[in-house]
């Protein structure tokens, strides 16, 4: 059973459906106790950092998520979920949860032909092996929709990179926390396989 953290941040049902498709039963909840005691947690989200942080503070889900991280619960962040797990976001000038060091900045591109948001299918290159991203082949593409990009404070927290003008971090993690900037629930079968691996993950990363 996985708890999908509800913080009024968009299409949680698509994450729930994808979980069901890979045999992972899911409950959508903002209740701190449900999150703190969950077997595993998905922290999804589409929307803006400012309102997301307000909503997480109001329900207590933000503190519960930090507690789940500290007690070793396997957690998967997706898109905005990834972004607000770092310390700061330029979006709405927001202090965020700080599970890991780092910040989030808007894409600033020199090429006038490149559009922001970065929306569509892009390749993901794993640079540090991780059980949840295991099996991703060169050329496998995932679906992205975002105008801001994560910049982890520690290079060793970067798990995968993608290229949009230059390289950017498209997956990160440490210990029992792993997160993707792309949307596995909208990335076809390669995305479903990632969710499948998360469903089996014990929260450990071999050093």
């Amino acid at each position, binding site marked *: 059973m996985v708890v999908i953290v509800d913080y009024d941040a968009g299409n949680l*049902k698509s994450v729930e*459906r*994808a979980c069901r498709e890979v045999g992972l039963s899911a409950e959508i909840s903002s209740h701190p106790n449900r999150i703190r005691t969950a077997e595993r947690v998905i922290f999804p989200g589409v929307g803006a950092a400012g309102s997301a942080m307000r909503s997480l503070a109001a329900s207590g889900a933000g503190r519960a998520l930090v507690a789940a991280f500290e007690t070793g619960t396997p957690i998967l962040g997706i898109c905005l979920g990834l972004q607000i797990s770092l310390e700061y976001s330029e979006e709405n000038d927001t202090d965020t949860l700080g599970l890991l060091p780092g910040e989030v900045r808007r894409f600033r591109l020199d090429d*006038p032909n490149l*559009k922001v948001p970065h*929306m569509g299918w892009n390749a993901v290159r794993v640079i540090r092996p991780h059980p949840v991203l295991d099996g991703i082949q060169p050329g496998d593409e995932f679906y992205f929709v975002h*105008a801001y990009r994560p910049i982890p404070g520690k290079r060793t927290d970067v798990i995968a990179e993608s*290229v949009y003008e230059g390289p950017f971090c498209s997956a990160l993690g440490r210990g029992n926390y792993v997160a993707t900037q792309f949307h596995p629930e909208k990335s076809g079968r390669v995305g479903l396989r990632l969710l499948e691996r998360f469903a089996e993950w014990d929260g450990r990363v071999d050093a």
Partner: protein
Amino acid sequence: MLSKRLIACLDVRDGHLAKSVKFVDTKNIGDPVAKAREYYLDGLDELVFYDINASSEGRRIILDVVEAVAEQVFIPLSVGGGVASVADATDLRLAGAEKINVNSAAVRRPALIGECAEAIGDQNVVLSMDIRRVEPSADMPSGYEIVINGGRKPMGIDALSWAKEGERLGAGELVVNSIDADGTREGYELNLTRMLSEAVRIPVIASGGAGEPDHLYDVLADGKADAALVASMVHYGDYTVSGLKRHLHGRGVKMRMSW
């Protein structure tokens, strides 16, 4: 870098897949849910449903179709047709649509674009434009005019200025649908697509007229579109999604080739 997208459009009427030629003579050609699943498994990048019902009964049916498709298709779903309010957009999002297409109602009341963008995010609001060729004039300097109500009502609005206005109001993407090319299978309207693509900083989806694989190449390369939308080409079994993608990839277009 981003791949170009192949998008299939399913026109749905009373729960059935329909296809029109030049926006009239619609006929039923199958079960939209089964088609959606088939295309998804064959490597489709994105799916668009267009609800061509005006009735309230038809509205309920499209929600059921979207819900059924969202259960088994894990790529972005976009839905349009008759979206006139934030409530319409929100209902479709709850049913499982990622992106919402606005068209006629946004021409009649442009504030709809901003209201939807505020409610569901800029990137999820697609401004779909039905456009016909006209003689360039002082009112219509680009030589292209916006038409609404499924291609029946010319609005006297210049397509180029409406595209720019749509972007300014918060649309995250444009669908450029040529009425002149729709259903002809003679190729997309390249001049129109290129003109609009060069005028905005949001992605442009070319629609209407595809009949051969090279038509897709032409609009993605020369027409500068970010995505090509097909319907008849794949609905009748003349071409497959994976075959089209292989063709484009073979001609050097960056496509997603593993799924």
